[in-house]
């Protein structure tokens, strides 16, 4: 009999026998897949519940990733991705370093820069605003008044992008006739913020105003709703903390500084890290609905660049240079960098707060 670690001494018979548990373990090892199958079959209802969701994600989230092979291939109108010819990293080269025949590279870098800047300004202005709003909410002691403020300020979050952008277009440009100037432009002109010519041209046709319009509408949309999480952290502070600070003679500002801020700091850090993680994922819908050929210079982001060349087939689409291959290569670069940011942010969050975001 072969000696191994799993033999145990059986006192009744006075000999060594194999550990029965180990026999089961070996059996499981030998018939691993059979065992898995048995467990699954015994519990088939649970697995059946999982299947539809898995299929939906497989078909419409993971199959597109297979189409990403197109990044390395020559786009073709007739052939499917699998049949197209490999071109290696040619598309990436064209995008990053440019080539003699097309001006696509500067356009890509412009889009990349705009993506980063739009998110960065969003972080810079859009991140602190909800915190400030939450601090203000905390000052409103009357429940009715606070409810009214909350109802009103959360509301824009639920408007669709189409409604919001239509309102912007009509309030800024008057929507219709070229002679029309929107109500908002008129107000801005009368207080001297913009001159007559600017108002007549329309703010949405001037590249220098695109980012401001994008950010202000973003704050209008999100500041109220995003303050919920900070407000929840603020009202969780025990009243005794304030009382203790008051005993020590802390004024309002000192209370903010030494009581409120430290208590909500962990929330702020987590939210900040999340925001940094999604730095490159700019929603394309709002940009598509707001920008036009006049404002490509500041408005075009990577995903709208991809849509223009890959979906709308500007510049030929099929086999010619700016096409589906280039467009998906551009977006993939953006999304890979974005993913690295998310994973990095998540790692930092885990280290900083023992809370993993996902």
């Amino acid at each position, binding site marked *: 009999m072969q000696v191994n670690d799993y033999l145990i001494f059986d006192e009744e018979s006075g000999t060594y026998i194999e550990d029965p548990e180990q026999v089961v373990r070996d059996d499981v090892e030998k018939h691993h897949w059979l065992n898995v199958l048995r467990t699954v079959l015994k519990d088939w209802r649970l697995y059946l519940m999982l299947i539809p969701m898995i299929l939906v994600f497989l078909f419409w989230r993971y199959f597109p990733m297979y189409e990403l092979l197109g990044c390395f291939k020559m786009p073709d109108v007739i052939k499917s991705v699998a049949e197209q010819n490999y071109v290696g990293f040619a598309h990436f080269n064209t995008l990053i370093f440019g080539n003699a025949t097309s001006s696509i590279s500067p356009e890509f870098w412009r889009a990349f820069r705009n993506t980063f800047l739009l998110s960065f300004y969003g972080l810079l202005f859009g991140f602190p605003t909800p915190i400030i709003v939450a601090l203000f909410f905390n000052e409103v002691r009357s429940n009715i008044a606070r409810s009214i403020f909350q109802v009103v300020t959360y509301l824009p979050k639920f408007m669709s992008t189409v409604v919001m952008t239509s309102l912007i*277009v009509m*309030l800024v440009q008057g929507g*219709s006739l070229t002679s*029309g100037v929107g*109500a908002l432009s008129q107000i801005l002109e009368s207080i001297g913020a913009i001159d007559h010519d600017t108002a007549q041209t329309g703010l949405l046709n001037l590249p220098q105003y695109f980012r401001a319009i994008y950010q202000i509408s973003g704050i209008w949309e999100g500041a109220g709703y995003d303050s919920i999480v900070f407000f929840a952290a603020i*009202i969780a502070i025990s009243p005794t903390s304030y009382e203790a600070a008051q005993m020590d003679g802390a004024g309002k500002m000192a209370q903010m500084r030494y009581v409120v801020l430290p208590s909500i700091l962990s929330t702020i850090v987590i939210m900040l890290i999340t925001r940094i993680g999604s730095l490159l994922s700019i929603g394309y819908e709002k940009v598509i609905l707001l920008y036009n050929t006049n404002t490509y210079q500041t408005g075009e982001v990577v995903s709208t660049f991809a*849509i223009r060349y890959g979906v709308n087939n500007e510049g030929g689409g099929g086999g010619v240079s700016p096409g589906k291959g280039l467009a998906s290569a551009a977006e993939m670069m953006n999304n890979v960098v974005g993913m690295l940011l998310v994973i990095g942010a998540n790692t930092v969050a885990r280290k900083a707060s023992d809370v993993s975001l996902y």
Partner: protein
Amino acid sequence: MKRKLEISELVFKIISYTLLTMFAICCLYPFIYTISASISGYHAVQYSEVVLLPKDIQFTAFADMFNDNMFWNSYTNTLFLTFYGTIWELVLSILGAYALSKKRLLFRKGFNFFLVFTMWFSAGTVPQFLNYLDTQRVFGTIGITDDKWLVVLAMGMAAMNIILLRNSFEGVPSEIEEAAIVDGATEMQVLWRVYIPMSKSIIATVALFFGISRWNGYYWAKTMMKNQNEHPLMVYIRSNLEQYQNDDFLVGWESKHSYAPDSLIYAMIICSIIPILIIYPFIQKYFAKGVNAGGVK
């Protein structure tokens, strides 16, 4: 000392109220303007004489909109997409989240990663577009020629919401489930009788997120639906807006209509917001629940 405290408190309170009021006005103003402009006359809107209150009040824009068959068509389409889309997403998410919340599920970590990865990395719009085209073709061969079903089935499904549901299901105490199983409940009955009632508020919140994102959906519906009769309301509003920016279209408008083209769009916007305003108080209740839970003073 005491006096100084009161003053700083008072000043801060005044600042808070003032700024919040201003912010609230900014949030409300576009909506009030929308209502005013939708019921004002041609000249008042066209030359921006409406600032807050309506001028030359009339309801012809609403009347024309209600007589527009395309408007009702797109409205029905939106209702269809929202209803079936929400149910589809909700059923799939609840079933999937329930399975994922069970510790005994094999390869649980793997399935979780399968979901979470889609939040980290997305293939992008072009592959997505090609994928939808393929789906359209496959649906066509099995007899689903209506692009509505493509939008309902293929779009949506956010991993984040499934994870929210899963976390909520994990919080249900296992004793209750065990008791139900002892009483002879099947898997479905456990889910239906125990888990769903115990996570009502999170399910309602997630359902409303689904519903609102379906109601507001624009880009893919516009891109994938060839037939104009299938377009939802948001696409219809946008196409109207684009039409009215075209000067040729507006030649002779004034002689035929007593309202500005903008008023028609404002009227449509109002109609598109009303359903959200109706369900909004119910969502608000759940927000308030979550937010005020820690704040009993």
